[in-house]
């Protein structure tokens, strides 16, 4: 039997993670908790099953070349982890006091990352097409929604924070999505025509792109900071600006900063995408009597679409992350929870802001990758 080197490495790391604290039990939401090892979260009889599943999951990654086994292994391991947490949380909370909080600890997170990576590695090895990846993503999201929706994890501390802030969470999530997608849309409206112009006029391109790339190097907090005096001046002097919600703090400075950051990928990739059309194709288009506008819409744009979409992928992932900083200047979004949590040293509140942001960024990246692949296949399939 051949061994898969990464599988062996993960099995060793996973073995080490089993020795780390698996969960913590704290007297309330602020104090540091006591570590609980994996074998004592629940009575030994129940631990055995979950532990066995985790070990089996790690072991199945070891043999090389069995793509099917490599998919099944992490699934069994994840099920084992989930089972241990579902059994463990109520058992630990039992008799621990009204304010007691139980949360997953380092060992759990390490094992979760290891299984996620084993799974990602197995999926990459199978080289799934765009539709299969969309199916896998839908299955993963549905599984996550089912687990969270069923309430089996609700004793966990993060979800306690969530249930205390259900309404705030919904409104901050909406705000976060508005910031990320709204700035993407605005950057598209401004950046796409700029990219088309830049493609036609090299002098303009030479003037715009360096300016945009310098804008991108300015650290986000500094950029948001610089927007504050600028926009409060605009709000105070331009008539009607304030009634549109333009002011120094809140939504407006974040939105403008995000749009500025987004322009480089949009304009740069539009220029690069439009330049990807082979000269012969353009000659042929000219030969059959297409106007400049027709050439753009029917030839250059379809061929350049994957590159342009790649630019939008960069923007979306970047903006979902940067929108977190809006929480610092009253702009809302998941960052509100992150920075509140940092101020109160409440770990679970930090997680309540950070975990959805990471999940959102990952989902957006996968969806955009699928779209890029689909548009890349298009020219082959259409006659």
């Amino acid at each position, binding site marked *: 039997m051949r061994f898969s080197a990464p599988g062996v490495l993960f099995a060793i790391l996973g073995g080490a993670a089993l020795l780390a604290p698996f969960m913590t039990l704290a007297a309330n939401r602020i104090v540091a908790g006591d570590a609980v090892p994996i074998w004592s979260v629940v009575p030994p009889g129940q631990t055995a099953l979950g532990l066995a599943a985790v070990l089996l999951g790690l072991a199945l990654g070891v043999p090389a070349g069995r793509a099917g086994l490599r998919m099944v292994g992490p699934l069994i391991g994840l099920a084992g982890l989930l089972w241990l947490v579902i059994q463990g949380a109520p058992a630990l909370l039992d008799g621990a006091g009204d304010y007691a909080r139980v949360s997953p600890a380092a060992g759990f997170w390490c094992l979760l990352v290891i299984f996620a990576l084993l799974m990602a590695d197995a999926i990459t090895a199978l080289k799934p097409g765009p539709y299969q990846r969309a199916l896998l993503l839908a299955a993963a999201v549905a599984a996550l929604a089912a687990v969270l929706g069923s309430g089996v994890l609700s004793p966990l501390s993060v979800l306690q924070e969530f249930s205390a802030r259900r309404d705030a969470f919904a409104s901050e999530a909406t705000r976060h999505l508005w910031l990320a997608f709204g700035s993407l849309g605005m950057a598209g409206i401004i950046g796409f025509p700029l990219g088309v112009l830049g493609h036609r006029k090299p002098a303009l391109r030479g003037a715009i792109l360096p300016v945009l790339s310098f804008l991108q190097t300015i*650290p986000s*907090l500094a950029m948001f900071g*610089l927007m504050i*005096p600028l926009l*409060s001046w605009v709000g105070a002097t331009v008539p009607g600006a304030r009634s549109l919600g333009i002011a120094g703090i809140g939504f407006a400075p974040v939105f403008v900063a995000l749009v500025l950051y987004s322009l480089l990928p949009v304009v740069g990739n539009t220029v690069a995408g439009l330049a990807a059309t082979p000269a012969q194709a353009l000659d042929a288009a000219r030969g059959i009597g297409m106007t400049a506008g027709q050439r753009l819409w029917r030839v250059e744009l379809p061929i350049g679409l994957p590159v342009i979409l790649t630019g939008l992928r960069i923007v979306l992932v970047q903006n979902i992350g940067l929108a977190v900083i809006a929480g*610092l200047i009253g702009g809302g979004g998941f960052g509100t929870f992150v920075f509140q949590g940092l101020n109160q*040293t409440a770990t679970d509140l930090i997680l309540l802001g950070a975990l959805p942001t990471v999940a959102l960024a990952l989902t957006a990246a996968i969806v955009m990758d699928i779209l890029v692949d689909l548009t890349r296949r298009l020219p082959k399939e259409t006659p």
Partner: protein
Amino acid sequence: MTAGNLLRLGLLGLLLALVLRPDWFTPLFTPLAPAGGPVIYARSSLLSLSLSHLGLVALASVAATLVAVTLAIFVTRPVGASFLPLSRTITNIGQTFPPVAVLALAVPALGFGSGPTLVALFLYGLLPIFENAITALSTLPPATMEAARGMGLNRWQRLWRVELPLALPVILTGIRLSVVIALGTATIGSTVAARTLGEVIIAGLLTNNTAYVLQGGLIVGLFAVLIYDAMAQLERYLAARMGG
């Protein structure tokens, strides 16, 4: 002197003045400060904050470069080849993690202070360097590699004298990306009690003092732009030397 160099010199002068002689700017910032409030940040010296900020970034970037290039060399050798697909997956997934989230998640694990900021900067900084080093080392021109083998260079000699020098410009691009991200993330690091220039901006935000916000923002922004530009110049110089 070209216009570009004149602009660089002007920006550098402005940056030095902002850091070393902040009092010169009092008349400029006074209208932005709350009436009667402090205009120039004086809770700690801007120079020491700048040095601490740049020190964090430099330390994290040097460590990230060493580790990332070593790992990239390992996975592009025959012995580590089985890790190559996995490392591509990790860099792809890792780079979708927002830097702020990495910083925030480092706090529960490591507590407050410069420590978690350093770890977050290091971890996030690994990815662009690793990705570029893998790309550079696995797309070297085959004819050159063949010639190096033909000359009788052994593996180590090929690595040191041919592969790494050829890969250097692309690796440097990765380092530049990583440094720019680190400068920005370090700024946010002051929310987890790391001593960086973000402190000035945050203090301004908390006390509604736009003068502080603008000072901090200008200093951090100028540092980032000038460092980015210097590294880009270095890459251009090295690439020209390789090609010429």
